[in-house]
């Protein structure tokens, strides 16, 4: 794990606020119809308007649907660190952010079989892989631990 923030690179520009102690996903809101999209885009797919503003999205929401990816995805394009021997099924789903949009996301969860529609989820922004001596940072959602 790279220790300096300079050695931590977001997987894509404009996907989430970075560097940040409280990173947020970045979406956009149409100034005409108010529809929120993720990722941020410069035009509106709902009303065809061309004026949007970037906004930070909620960090908590509920799991709207999910699946469990049970085979190692093809490379390319997959860049995850697993080998066929170390691969473990992982969750992918849509998290509904109240009043905003549903974000497609990988799910960080040790036991994907415990996932359920309607679960409370929260954003995690952390290292996905190491590449060329740098940590590549991506976003995930994880179940909110029962208090």
């Amino acid at each position, binding site marked *: 794990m790279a220790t300096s923030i300079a050695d931590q690179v977001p*997987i894509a520009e404009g996907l989430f606020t970075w560097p940040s102690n409280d990173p947020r996903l970045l979406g956009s809101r149409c100034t005409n119809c108010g*529809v929120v999209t993720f*990722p941020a885009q410069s035009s509106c797919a709902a009303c065809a308007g061309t004026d949007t503003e970037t906004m930070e999205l909620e960090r908590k929401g509920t799991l709207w*649907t999910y699946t469990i*990816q049970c085979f190692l995805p093809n490379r390319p*394009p*997959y860049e*995850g660190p697993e080998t066929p021997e170390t691969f473990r099924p992982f969750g*992918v789903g849509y998290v509904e952010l109240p009043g905003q949009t549903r974000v497609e996301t*990988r799910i960080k969860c040790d036991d994907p079989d415990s996932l359920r529609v309607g679960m409370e989820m929260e954003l995690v922004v952390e290292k996905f892989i190491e590449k060329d001596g740098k940590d590549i940072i991506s976003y995930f959602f994880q179940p909110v631990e029962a208090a």
Partner: protein
Amino acid sequence: MDVAIIGIGIHPFGRTDGVTGLEQGVFAARQALKDAGLNWQDMQFAYGGSAAAEKADTMVSKLGLTGLQFINVANGCATGGSALQSAYMAIQSGMFDVGMAVGFDKHPRGAFTVDPEGSGLGKWYGDVGMALTPQFFGMKIQRYMHEYGISEDTLTRVAVKNYKNGAMNPNAWRKNAFSYEEVAESPMVCHPLRKYMFCSPAEGGCAMILCRADKAKQFTSNPVFLKAAVVRTRNFGSFEVFTQGQALDRADAPTVQASRAAFEMAGVGPEDIDVAQLQDTESGAEIMHMSENGFCADGDQEKWLAEGWTEIDGKLPVNTDGGCLANGEPIGASGLRQVYEIALQLRGEAGKRQVPNQPKTGYTHVYGAPGLSGVTILSR
């Protein structure tokens, strides 16, 4: 101007080593011409497509350089359906009397590989492992099961039915009738969908000859009439493959739009359909497409499958040739295969899998990335 299908041809689906995709398309084209009693020189136009094999228009170097209008079609999984819809319009417009719709493909083994950047999704999307169509299918049916109480039992029954039908189809890829247990216990691929609930990319070719309906009897005693051919794309808010942010308000799927438009064009309703081919990329898709196409209410599929209503002797036989599950999915040919099967059924030539009581009206539906549907309605 009504349009008739006067010739149909197919190259067996599955894996044919040593035969290119293009050659499989040429084989299907020659079969269709023979069925219509016509020669390639009689074709005034052709629309053709393939996603992973050669460009369709290069078929002319094998079929003959006659100077005809040949237009390549590329429309994802609806490529074959779109070729047919284009041919339909070409005749309906009055510009041509007779021509061909053709499609073929030859995909590498394994899941479809997606180029996220070419699809406007950003490289990161593929890097993190989300550019996989099976995930979408898993997530869409997962939500549907949650909303409408569909069980895993119903997912299994769809697959068992389609493999059983495929076993009676000499052109199908998978001719094994998998048992209920074999499907239900096959490895999980993308929860809740298992290995034998998914179709695979494959190879194959299919072609049909279309002509003005008023001239059809010159060529054949058993024409099949294309009463509607419609393609629609997604509206804002429908739940589609590779949607990184989904709107909170759901819109009708493109299938719903295409289906409604096709029924209106044909002047018939779902209750008039005697046999249907519905896109079954996996078991969940066939279930959801039963209601998206207007054949049953959401959730009623539990009863439909349990009662066997979509079996060959049921009230609405669905995917009588085994569908994508038993035939695999060569993208360029897949939508045309559906029409081929309906034409066979309406002509009463479907052999062991013939739907009883001489079906009069049939229906086909293809769905593809990134959210488009093609529907046809046929009658004799």
